């Protein structure tokens, strides 16, 4: 249980709750309340990963979500999740973690050879080589590069966890729960406003949880946090969301949050989601995201054991972990001194504070002196020693000349550094606000608000407890006032202490080393050095965006939160332009890497998209039906019997329909009820056909174009009464036809007294087709005379089916005597089962969409979307007859008159018969005049539909062929990889050309 770097006491960990975990297989111990990072450090483990490019040993550097180095894989539920930050992973009993990007082991990584060859691999080196021989890129270079790149290994198995979603509205969303965030939440909540407070950490409080030298309301800041959270938690109008990252700020004050629900638990109830996506519409937002400390860019600043100063302090005060036994503190500002003092107070040897400033503040000097800490003022770190852990640091004395004089070597096992603080402006930037340079603060801070948000506290560069609390209260009040127009009196507390985040340094630090030999890292994870940035500038990259892309600085998984400011300063120096003129890269969502599963949410499996089923669905399942997806619908494709394949099933189904009778579920076809005095006039304007003279009780095939003149939909339309039409559409077109009708009705012809209502799902539709169709339905229909005279082809009547009301259409999509019975949806199952039983008596069959396609093709009926493709006019489709010639206007009429639509040589709808009746053409196959066309020959057309026709006992095909209608009887060719297939151009009707069968 030895944790050599654990303090005797203190910290917020639960010392009574010891935990066991593993790292690269080694069993280690920690406590409840630890992160993986703090527990590793407690065990003296700094080396946790290898860098991206040079495979350099890297250690834990920070204590938050900005961590660039300590990315690990975590095993859970039998699989591994890569690239998790050890600084964010909460420790639980049995946690299994592994290091990444190393082979064979973290300690001995062959990839580290890259580090020795690094002179060959400056920024952008890959653009300059790997080009010869040409074929080697795909086969040799790229595979090697790909294998070397990447961080962790991807998961190997599907994710068994699930993810939740919640849409939420609030008056005030507060992001971050440090002093300013808590104050803002309090101030807003007191007004009665609905407040959501979220924080990415497990515990609320932010920096207050590691604050040792301050007090709020006379209390330890951590105690004030507990009281405040308790008070907020007791209010109905407040929602507290710990472990919740606000990762995206979108238009119209839409903020997305990722709540981690179970990942911190050793065993989670499987009913809980792993993570939950909160999609929040906030009237007002308070961004209290704090600031993060900046690394210092000195040579070899990346050794394990080198941490940010505040991280060292947080590990000590919050987690009870000493980052080392002999610690050097390097800084350019005040805040790091407190880390040194706290460490000294816990008995850690602080070997020195090296402050770049010639004269650090006297009060700090005095405290240091009281603790016996050596202070090296005007001193900078110029290098470090040690490979897998820092052993010593080189100091340099800054001279007035700008030169650096050697300042000797200091032994140490940890180095804490602080280059100053950078406000976290990511969310503000995502809200599309433009940051502005604040020279006093030495930082980019939020400028004018573009959306309803304001930043507060350190996220706008404000430091010190009293000031941030006051600012937080004000931000909360302002937000609540803006959201709900109310204010409230609240008791504001006073505070003392808190870190001063002002000052610091930017960019590469001066040193006395051989510049061409040493590397000072700017972007740790992507191994970008100060030299790389300078090289990019030398090569002509002037925009910061170019520098970023060329060097990859800022493109690692921390999105440059640690590196951007230093890179900018180095670029600014190299370009000899003020930093503010170099530009800034944009922060993108997500703020921190966010699980794909969270975005996908519940959309998986059968809930990926609604599965729409027809009333015959269950029957079809029970009877072995095979389904196809048509839009969201499941339609029965064919009904195989006794192990039939699709071909035999379809052949049997088609034959049976022609010989006796078949039953088909047509429920998915779109249905629209068009009602009102102007119903006929409206259809007259929408469809190509004339409608006004259609008598009630009769039907007509309708063709719908777009205003460009191309066919978009079709269907049979029945007139039920003078002012009532029953319109059918294609299955896929149902929604879009309604939408287009509404569009014309509402915006072009609002004066028409007509309304449209979708009734697709009101009715179940059974198509009974075949010579015996009448016999099949007759026993069940009442109130309708089924005789050919009373109910001729293309007519509709209302009556009952088995006693329930029905609309009976006599129509046919097979060329046989046919009926389509519409009953209300609830009776659809009854109707289907009744008819399915009845057809058996007539040796009939149920049939699916495939047979439907074959049967209609034998008759040359088009299927919109298969035989047409959005480029086909009625004339092309051989359907000039469907156009009402005398009509003043209809949708598409003017479009049809455009030059190319009336041109010669347009593709036209024809039939094709292969010379060999057994050869079935492939749908989509191209048609040429030449038997063996040269590559690049323009096709004369293509096969739109192709089937084996049981009725003809041969294959048939439909096609679009240039000028095809004039080519009747001519031979064309369908060139295939294994030879050309000769075909004869025919009419489109293959079966019962006179149409006698339909009129019986």
């Amino acid at each position, binding site marked *: 249980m030895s944790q050599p770097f654990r303090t005797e006491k203190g910290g917020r960990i639960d010392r009574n709750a010891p935990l066991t975990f593993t790292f690269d297989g080694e069993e280690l111990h920690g406590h409840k309340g630890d992160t993986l990072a703090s527990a590793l450090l407690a065990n003296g483990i700094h080396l946790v990963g290898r860098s991206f490019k040079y495979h350099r040993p890297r250690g834990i550097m920070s204590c938050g979500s900005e961590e660039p180095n300590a990315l690990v894989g975590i095993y859970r539920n039998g699989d591994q999740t890569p*690239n998790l930050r050890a600084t964010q992973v909460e420790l639980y009993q049995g946690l299994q973690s592994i290091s990444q990007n190393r082979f064979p082991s973290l300690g001995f990584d062959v990839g580290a050879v890259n580090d020795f060859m690094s002179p060959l691999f400056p920024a952008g*080196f890959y*653009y300059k080589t790997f080009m010869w021989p040409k074929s080697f890129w*795909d086969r040799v270079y*790229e595979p090697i590069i790909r294998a070397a790149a*990447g*961080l962790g290994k991807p*998961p190997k198995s599907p994710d068994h966890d699930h993810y939740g979603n919640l849409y939420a509205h609030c008056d005030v969303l507060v992001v971050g729960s440090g002093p300013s965030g808590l104050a803002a939440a309090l101030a807003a909540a007191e007004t009665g406003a609905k407040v959501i407070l979220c924080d990415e950490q497990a515990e609320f409080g932010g920096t207050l949880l590691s604050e040792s030298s301050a007090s709020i309301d006379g209390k330890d800041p951590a105690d004030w946090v507990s009281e405040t959270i308790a008070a907020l938690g007791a209010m109905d109008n407040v929602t507290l969301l710990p472990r919740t990252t606000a990762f995206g700020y979108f238009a119209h004050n839409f903020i997305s949050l990722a709540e981690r629900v179970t990942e911190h638990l050793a065993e989670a109830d499987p009913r809980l989601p792993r993570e939950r996506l909160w999609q929040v519409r906030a009237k007002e937002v308070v961004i209290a995201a704090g600031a993060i400390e900046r690394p210092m860019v000195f040579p070899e600043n990346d050794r394990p054991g080198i941490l940010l100063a505040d991280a060292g302090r947080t590990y000590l005060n919050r987690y009870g972990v000493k980052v080392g036994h002999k610690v050097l503190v390097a800084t350019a500002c005040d805040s790091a001194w407190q880390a040194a003092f706290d460490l000294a107070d816990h008995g850690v040897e602080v070997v020195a504070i090296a402050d770049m400033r010639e004269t650090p503040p006297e009060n700090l000097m005095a405290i240091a002196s009281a603790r016996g800490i050596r202070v090296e003022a005007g001193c900078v770190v110029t290098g470090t020693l040690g490979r897998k852990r820092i052993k010593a640091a080189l100091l340099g004395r800054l001279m007035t000349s700008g030169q650096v004089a050697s300042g000797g070597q200091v032994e140490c096992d940890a180095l804490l550094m602080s280059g100053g603080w950078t406000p976290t402006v990511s969310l503000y930037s995502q809200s599309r606000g433009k940051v502005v340079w604040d020279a006093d603060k030495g930082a980019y801070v939020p400028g004018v608000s573009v959306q309803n948000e304001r930043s507060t506290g350190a996220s706008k560069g404000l430091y010190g407890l009293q000031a941030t609390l006051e600012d937080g209260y004000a931000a909360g009040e302002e937000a609540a006032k803006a959201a709900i127009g109310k204010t409230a009196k609240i008791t504001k507390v006073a505070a003392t202490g808190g870190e001063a985040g002002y000052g610091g340094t930017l960019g590469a630090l001066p040193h006395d080393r051989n510049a061409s030999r040493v590397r000072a890292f700017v972007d740790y994870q992507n191994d970008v050095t100060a030299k790389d940035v300078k*090289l990019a500038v030398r090569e002509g990259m002037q925009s910061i965006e170019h520098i970023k892309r060329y060097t990859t600085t800022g493109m690692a998984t921390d999105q440059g939160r640690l590196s951007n400011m230093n890179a900018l300063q180095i670029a600014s120096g190299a370009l000899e332009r003020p930093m503010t003129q170099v530009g800034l890269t944009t922060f993108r969502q997500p703020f921190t890497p966010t699980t794909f599963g969270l975005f996908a949410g519940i959309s998986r499996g059968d809930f990926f998209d609604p599965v729409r089923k027809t009333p015959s669905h269950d029957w079809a399942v029970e009877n072995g039906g095979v389904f196809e997806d048509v839009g969201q619908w499941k339609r029965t494709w064919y009904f195989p019997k006794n192990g039939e394949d699709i071909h035999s099933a379809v052949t049997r189904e088609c034959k049976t329909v022609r010989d006796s009778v078949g039953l088909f579920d047509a429920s998915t076809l779109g249905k629209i009820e068009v009602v009102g005095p102007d119903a006929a006039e409206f259809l007259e304007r929408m469809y190509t056909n004339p409608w006004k003279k259609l008598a009630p009780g009769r039907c007509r095939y309708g063709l719908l174009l777009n205003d460009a003149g191309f066919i978009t939909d079709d269907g049979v339309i029945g007139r039920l009464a003078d002012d009532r039409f029953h319109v059918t559409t294609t299955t896929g077109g149902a929604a879009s036809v309604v939408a287009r009708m509404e569009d014309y009705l509402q915006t072009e012809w609002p004066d028409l007294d007509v309304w449209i209502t979708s009734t697709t799902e009101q009715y179940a539709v059974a198509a009974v087709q075949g010579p015996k169709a009448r016999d099949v339905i007759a026993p069940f229909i009442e109130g309708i005379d089924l005789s050919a005279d009373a109910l001729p082809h293309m007519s509709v009547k209302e009556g009952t089916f088995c006693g329930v009301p029905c609309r009976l259409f006599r129509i046919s999509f097979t060329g046989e005597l046919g009926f389509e019975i519409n009953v209300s949806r609830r009776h659809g199952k009854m109707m289907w089962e009744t008819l399915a039983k009845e057809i058996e008596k007539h040796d009939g069959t149920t049939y699916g969409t495939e047979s439907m396609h074959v049967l209609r093709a034998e008759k040359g009926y088009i299927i919109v979307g298969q035989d047409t493709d959005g480029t086909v006019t009625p004339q092309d489709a051989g359907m000039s007859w469907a156009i009402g010639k005398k009509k003043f206007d209809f949708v598409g009429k003017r479009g049809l008159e455009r030059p190319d639509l009336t041109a010669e040589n347009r593709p036209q709808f024809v039939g094709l018969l292969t010379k060999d009746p057994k050869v079935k053409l492939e749908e989509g196959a191209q048609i040429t005049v030449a038997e063996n066309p040269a590559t690049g020959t323009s096709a004369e057309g293509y096969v739109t539909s192709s089937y084996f026709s049981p009725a003809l006992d041969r294959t048939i095909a439909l096609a679009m062929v240039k000028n095809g209608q004039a080519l009747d009887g001519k031979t064309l060719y369908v060139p295939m990889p294994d030879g050309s297939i000769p075909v004869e151009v025919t009419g489109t009707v293959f079966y019962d050309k006179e149409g006698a069968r339909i009129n019986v």
Partner: protein
Amino acid sequence: MKRYSFLELAKNAFSAHQNWGRQWRAPEPKAEYDVVIVGAGGHGLATAYYLAKEHGVRNVAVLEKGWLGGGNTGRNTTIVRSNYLWEESAALYNHAIGLWQNLSQELNYNVMYSARGVMMLAHTVHDVQVAQRHIHANRLAGVQNEWLTPEQAKEYCPPLNIAKNIRYPVMGAALQRVGGTARHDAVAWGYARGADDMGVDIIQNCAVTGIRRDQNGAVEGVETAKGFIKAKKVGVVAAGHTSVVMDMAGVRLPLESFPLQALVSEPVKPAFPCVVMSNTIHAYISQSDKGELVIGAGTDQFVSYSQTGGIHITNHTIDAICELFPHFRRMRMLRNWGGIVDTTPDRSPILSKTPVKGLYVNCGWGTGGFKATPGSGHVFAHTIAKDEPHKINAPFTIDRFRTGRLIDEAAAAAVAH
């Protein structure tokens, strides 16, 4: 121009890389050019490159309002393929494929064209029909494209879920083996370096604010943030902002600009060997050489120049990806961004002369312009130099919308029945 090579790299290592020259200059604009190209994206830079290289027109300026390659060139998912349906399209994109194959060597800049194959999934009977039609048409046109069964698709792309019981099972795929990806920035930079070397002035941070025309209506030059620049010919290649720029010359276009989003995951070790696209469930994915999964989303439904999009679009893209590749559900999104795509009614580009003498336009690539970069630049350079289109881009006129002679790639995949 210093040639790039491994040897050169090694040599420079000894001088700590202090001696690499600029890849391109940062010139101030001259008073007059033979040709001004508006927009220093991949297409604009390629146009300038081929004007100089193949037509000897070297007195050329490329004006860029921001930084070169900063528009859609630097924001897309870098897919390269040519298996389009109509012979006009196939010819155009295949022309590009031909140029892609030698582009690194041509430019002496590794653009990392990686012919790892582009697989387009079919999920329904209708998808299969559409895919087959493409394959047949492509074969006749000499464009490589082949049909894979679900099992073959899985063999080509092992992470693919071909289970029969998923919501939209994979029924097969069309594979173009010469399709793949390339490094987007490198394309812009390589063309910039090559064009610059031949004397082309690339002028960044120089927004065009007006197009000046003489009394006969012909182009005289452009007003810019850096003053008036005279030019007899102006080629507008300002994807996303084409309507805005062309409006300066009073030319109306059938364009709408939509936000298009893309995203990458955190980098991981090789997990995805090719490019997979699915039109039915709206997603496309590949893995970059750096290890990031690169994923494309659909467009938002409204015109916008905000370069941002809605999260619901992203959600739908990722749910589709996770359905096809369930292993990736635990992967994490690193970065999500948006571009602006000019979209034409027939989803094919316009590469054309305009009613204004001396004004040429290259636009309307929608979501798929990157793949055409070399071909587009090549034929557009021809169009400008000769004042008449190359035979490949001759059909891609503005006038086709009047006559109805569309090249309708969207309609051909139309869903119905």
